[in-house]
C-alpha cells in the first residue's frame, strides 16, 4: 500500500484502484472517455463540483478529443492537439482519475464493480456507460485483410495517413457523411479515391435526391470517382488489400479500403451485464437504464425508441443526466435533429422530415448558376423539414421555425428566400417585394439585366415572358429569375399579361422546346441534373415529364445516357403491351411483314405452352400473342429468341413496323422490290426510340396496298424511282402524308428515311407524332432540311446511324437471361412475426 499524498487516488489491496482513505463521496465510474462521457462529467461538475468522486475509463490512449474533428485532421487542416477538448490538466484539476488504453470488459451488478481488460476491478456507486458506437463492418470476404480500416478514431486516421504517404488508390465503402469526409481527406492527401455507395444517392438519410446529385457532381469535379448502387462482393488481395470486387463484377484496385458504411450502438458490455437493450441501451428520461445504479448516455443509448448518431442530442442528454445526478430532475424529451455541415468544403444542411408525403407542400428554389438548391417542406402551415445545398445561411432559421412549430402562413410565399427577405420590411407579398426593389436592382444575373431595363422593355410593348426574354434577355438563360420577371410583368401591366408558351407539365415553367435546347446547350447528362438546372418545382417530377426527359436525354446522348427504367411507361419498361386485365401481349418482329415456318412454329408453340387465349394479326402485318402473364414474359422471349425473333417494339414510342406489299417479285403491277426495301428499311430503323410511335410502309406501286400514305414515313415505288411521303397517320384524325420528294435509287430512299427520322427525333416534342409536328413546323421547313440542304441531310443521317449502333440490342434477349428479373417476379414472403 502506498499513499500518493493529497487527494490523489490510492491503490489498495482489495481494488486495483482504491478509495482515497479520506474520501467518502459517492463514486461515479464512467465507461468511455469520449465526447458523451466527458460532456456528462462537465455538466455534472458545473452543477455540483464536489458531490461525486469520478473515475473515467477510456479504450484509447488519448485524453478527451473532439471525434467529429477527425476529418479536418485527416485533411491536414488541423492537428490532433487542435481537437483536444480536455487536456490532462482538466482531469487533474477536477480530481478525476483517468485510465486510458484499458476498456471496461465486464460489469458485476450484484457486487457493483467493473473489471477492465487488464484486470483492474473497482467498485462504483453510480456507473455511467458512454461507450458510443462501433463502426459497422460489412461481412464480405477479405474484410480482415491488412489495409482494410474503419474511420472512427485517431488510430484509424493515423492508418489512413500512413497509407496516403505511400500513395496509390483508395476505395471508400460508404457514401454517407463519414465516408465522404474520409474520401475528401484522402483525396487532399494525394490518393486517387473511389467511393462506393450501395444506395442510389449519396447521404440519402440527410439529403434528398436533388441535393445529393449536386453533391455528387461537385465531388466528381474534384477528381473523386463516385459509384452509387455499388454492392461490394469482396475485398481481394494476397496477404494485404489489392482491391474491391463489386457484385456486378467490376474490380477496383486499391491499396487502402476504408469501411465507412455506418455505426451501431456499442451495447455488448451492457447486454452482457443483463441490462435491457434494444437497438441501444434502453434509458428513461433521466438516462437511467433498467438498473437504477447504472446510467447511459450518447450514441449507445436508445431513448423512447430513438437512437441518435449526431452530436446535438448528446448535449441534451448530458444536461438531463447531470440534472438527475444532482436531484434536479428535468428529463430528456428526445431531440429533433438537424445536420449542418461542410462535406468536403461544400455546405449542406438538413433538418426534420423532408420525405414529403400526404399534406406536405414542397417549396423549392433552385439557383443553377450559383449551385444552390433549397427545399422547405411545409405541413399544416408549419415547417416540418428543410434541405439546403450550397447556401445554408438560413438553416438555423428554418430549424428554429421547425422546432418552435411556428405558423408560417403569413410568410409562406417568401419563406424560401430566407429570413432577411421573409421578415424584412413587412413585405409579405412577392409582388410587393419586387415592387420595393430599386430600378437598379439586378434581376437577371446571367445577362446583367436590371429591374429598370425589364420595365423599359415591357413599356416598349413586351407583354409576355417570351417577349421580355427576346427583348432584354432577362430570364432567358438559366431561368432562375423567371418568377421575378413574371412579377414585374404583372406589376407593370396589371391584367394585360399574356400567358407564356404551354409548359411541359406542372413541374416546370419551361416548355418542351426550351428544355430540349437547354439539355443540349448545357450538356446535361441526367434527369436530376435537368431538374436542378431548370428549377423543377417537384422533387422527382411526374408521370408526364419523366418519360419526356428520359427520351430527350437518350436522343441527345446516344451511347452515353443510361436509360432510366422507372421513367418509362409500363409497356416500354416491360417490353410488351399491358392489357386491361393486367396481362401482356407480345409481338415478335417480322422484318417487313415476312415470316417463315420456323418463326410460325415457335409462335404456335408459345401460344400453346403459355396457354395464350388469343393470337391476332395486327394492322402492321405482325402476329400479336395475347394474355401472357408478366412472370412468363422472360420465358416467352427466350423461346421466341431461340427461333431467331427479336422484340417487335409494338409497345414503344419507337419504330413500330415497316409494312410492305409483295412488289415486283410477285405482283404483276409491282414496279420495284417493295418487300426487299421494306426489310432493309426495318433493319436500319428498328430499335430507335422516338417522340411517339413511328410507322413506315413501302408500297410497290401507286395502288399503294401497304397504305404508305397514312404512315409517318411512306415509300411508294414508281417505274422511275421512289416517292417519299411523310407525316401521315390513321387514328382519330386521319391525316394523309405530304409528298416530301422523289428519289431515283433505293439507297437514296434509305438515306432520306434515316435523315427524316432523325429530324423528327431531334425536333418534335415528346408524344407529338409526325402529323401534328409537320403541321406545326410546316412541310416547307421539312423539305428545306431534308431535300434542299444536302450537307444537313447527310449530317442527320449520320447522327441517326450513329445512334442506332447503341439502340439495336434486342431488349428481350437480356431479359430472357435474367436481367431485371425483379420486374417480372413477385417478392417471396419469408417469415411471420407476431407482436
Amino acid at each position, binding site marked *: 500500500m502506498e499513499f500518493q499524498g493529497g487527494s490523489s487516488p490510492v491503490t489498495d489491496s482489495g481494488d486495483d484502484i482504491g478509495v482515497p482513505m479520506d474520501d467518502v463521496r459517492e463514486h461515479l465510474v464512467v465507461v468511455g472517455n469520449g465526447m458523451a462521457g466527458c460532456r456528462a462529467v462537465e455538466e455534472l461538475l458545473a452543477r455540483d463540483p464536489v458531490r461525486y468522486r469520478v473515475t473515467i475509463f477510456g479504450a484509447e490512449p488519448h485524453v478527451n478529443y473532439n471525434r467529429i474533428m477527425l476529418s479536418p485532421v485527416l485533411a491536414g487542416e488541423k492537428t490532433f492537439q487542435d481537437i483536444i477538448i480536455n487536456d490532462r490538466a482538466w482531469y487533474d484539476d477536477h480530481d478525476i482519475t483517468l485510465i486510458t488504453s484499458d476498456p471496461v470488459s465486464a460489469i458485476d451488478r450484484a457486487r457493483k464493480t467493473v473489471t477492465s481488460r487488464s484486470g483492474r476491478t473497482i467498485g462504483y456507486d453510480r456507473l455511467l456507460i458512454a461507450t458510443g458506437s462501433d463502426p459497422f463492418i460489412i461481412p464480405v470476404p477479405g474484410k480482415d485483410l491488412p489495409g482494410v480500416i474503419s474511420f472512427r478514431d485517431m488510430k484509424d486516421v493515423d492508418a489512413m495517413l500512413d497509407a496516403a504517404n505511400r500513395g496509390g488508390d483508395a476505395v471508400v465503402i460508404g457514401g454517407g457523411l463519414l465516408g465522404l469526409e474520409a474520401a475528401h481527406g484522402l483525396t487532399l492527401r494525394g490518393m486517387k479515391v473511389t467511393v462506393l455507395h450501395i444506395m*442510389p444517392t449519396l447521404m440519402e438519410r440527410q439529403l434528398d435526391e436533388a441535393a445529393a446529385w449536386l453533391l455528387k457532381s461537385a465531388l466528381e469535379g474534384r477528381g473523386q470517382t463516385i459509384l452509387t448502387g455499388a454492392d461490394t462482393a469482396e475485398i481481394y488481395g494476397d496477404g494485404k488489400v489489392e482491391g474491391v470486387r463489386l457484385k456486378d463484377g467490376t474490380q477496383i484496385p486499391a491499396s487502402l479500403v476504408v469501411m465507412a458504411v455506418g455505426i451501431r450502438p456499442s451495447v455488448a458490455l451492457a447486454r452482457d451485464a443483463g441490462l435491457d437493450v434494444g437497438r441501444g441501451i434502453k434509458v428513461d428520461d433521466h438516462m437511467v437504464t433498467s438498473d437504477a445504479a447504472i446510467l447511459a448516455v450518447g450514441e449507445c443509448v436508445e431513448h423512447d425508441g430513438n437512437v441518435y448518431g449526431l452530436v446535438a442530442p448528446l448535449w441534451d442528454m448530458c444536461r438531463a443526466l447531470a440534472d438527475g445526478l444532482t436531484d434536479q430532475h428535468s428529463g430528456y424529451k428526445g431531440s429533433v435533429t438537424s445536420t449542418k455541415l461542410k462535406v468536403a468544403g461544400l455546405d449542406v444542411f438538413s433538418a426534420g422530415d423532408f420525405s414529403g408525403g400526404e399534406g406536405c407542400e414542397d417549396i423549392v428554389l433552385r439557383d443553377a448558376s450559383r449551385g444552390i438548391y433549397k427545399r422547405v417542406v411545409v405541413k399544416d402551415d408549419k415547417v416540418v423539414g428543410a434541405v439546403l445545398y450550397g447556401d445554408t445561411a438560413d438553416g438555423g432559421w428554418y430549424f428554429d421555425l421547425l422546432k418552435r412549430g411556428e405558423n408560417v402562413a403569413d410568410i409562406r410565399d417568401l419563406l424560401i428566400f430566407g429570413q432577411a427577405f421573409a421578415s424584412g420590411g413587412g413585405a409579405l407579398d412577392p409582388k410587393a417585394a419586387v415592387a420595393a426593389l430599386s430600378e437598379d436592382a439586378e434581376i437577371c444575373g446571367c445577362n446583367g439585366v436590371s429591374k429598370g431595363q425589364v420595365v423599359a422593355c415591357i413599356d416598349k410593348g413586351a407583354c409576355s415572358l417570351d417577349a421580355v426574354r427576346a427583348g432584354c434577355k432577362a430570364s432567358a438563360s438559366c431561368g432562375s429569375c423567371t418568377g421575378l420577371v413574371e412579377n414585374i410583368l404583372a406589376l407593370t401591366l396589371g391584367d394585360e399579361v399574356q400567358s407564356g408558351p404551354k409548359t411541359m407539365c406542372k413541374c416546370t415553367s419551361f416548355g418542351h422546346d426550351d428544355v430540349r435546347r437547354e439539355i443540349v446547350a448545357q450538356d446535361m447528362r441526367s434527369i436530376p441534373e435537368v431538374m436542378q438546372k431548370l428549377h423543377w418545382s417537384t422533387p422527382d417530377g*411526374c408521370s408526364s415529364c419523366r418519360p419526356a426527359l428520359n427520351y430527350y436525354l437518350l436522343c441527345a446522348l446516344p451511347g452515353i445516357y443510361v436509360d432510366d427504367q*422507372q421513367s418509362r411507361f409500363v409497356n416500354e419498361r416491360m417490353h410488351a403491351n*399491358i392489357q386491361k386485365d393486367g396481362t401482356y401481349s407480345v409481338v415478335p418482329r417480322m422484318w417487313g411483314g415476312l415470316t417463315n415456318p420456323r418463326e410460325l412454329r415457335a409462335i404456335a408453340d408459345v401460344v400453346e405452352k403459355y396457354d395464350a387465349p388469343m393470337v391476332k394479326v395486327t394492322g402492321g402485318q405482325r402476329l400479336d400473342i395475347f394474355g401472357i402473364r408478366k412472370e412468363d414474359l422472360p420465358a416467352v422471349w427466350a423461346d421466341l429468341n431461340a427461333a431467331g425473333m427479336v422484340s417487335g417494339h409494338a409497345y414503344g414510342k419507337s419504330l413500330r413496323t415497316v409494312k410492305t406489299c409483295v412488289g415486283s417479285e410477285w405482283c404483276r403491277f409491282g414496279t420495284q422490290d417493295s418487300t426487299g426495301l421494306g426489310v432493309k428499311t426495318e433493319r436500319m430503323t428498328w430499335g430507335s426510340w422516338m417522340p411517339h410511335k413511328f410507322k413506315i410502309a413501302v408500297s410497290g406501286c401507286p395502288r399503294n396496298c401497304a397504305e404508305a400514305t397514312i404512315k409517318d414515313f411512306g415509300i411508294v415505288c414508281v417505274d422511275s424511282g421512289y416517292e417519299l411521303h411523310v407525316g401521315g397517320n390513321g387514328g382519330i384524325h386521319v391525316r394523309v402524308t405530304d409528298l416530301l420528294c422523289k428519289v431515283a435509287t433505293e439507297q437514296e430512299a434509305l438515306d432520306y428515311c434515316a435523315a427524316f427520322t432523325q429530324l423528327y427525333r431531334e425536333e418534335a416534342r415528346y408524344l407529338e407524332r409526325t402529323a401534328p409536328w409537320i403541321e406545326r413546323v410546316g412541310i416547307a421547313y421539312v423539305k428545306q432540311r431534308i431535300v434542299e440542304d444536302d450537307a444537313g441531310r447527310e449530317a442527320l443521317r449520320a447522327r441517326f446511324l450513329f445512334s442506332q449502333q447503341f439502340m439495336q440490342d434486342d431488349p428481350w434477349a437480356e431479359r430472357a437471361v435474367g436481367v431485371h428479373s425483379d*420486374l417480372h417476379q413477385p*417478392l417471396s*414472403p419469408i417469415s411471420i412475426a407476431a407482436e
Partner: protein
Amino acid sequence: MTDWIDIGTLADIPPRGARTVHIGGEKEIAVFRTGDDQIFALVNECPHKKGPLSQGIVHGHSVACPLHNWNIALKSGEAQGEDKGCTPTIAVKQEYGRIWIARPEMAKVAA
C-alpha cells in the same frame, strides 16, 4: 396484435418502383419504394378499372396507374385530383433492415 410478414429488403425493390407480393389467397399486394426510400403497400388494383398499380410510374408519393393515368396517393390509396376512388392500403414498416407488411386481413379502406 398484428402479424408482420417479412417480404425482403429495400434493395429488392427498385427506387421509384414496385414489386408485387402474394400472400395466401388474398389479392395481390403492390409494395412501392419512393425516391426517398419510403415503403408503401396497397392492393395492386386501381379503384378505376383495377389496373395493376405496381406497374405505374412512381413520382413523389404517388403512382400513376398504367392503364388510364389516374394518380393514386400511396399513403392513403386515394385517387388524386378530380378522380374519385380509393384503393385499400396495408400497414408496412421497415425494421431490422427488412420490410414487413401486416397480414392482409388488416387491409383497411381509408375513410
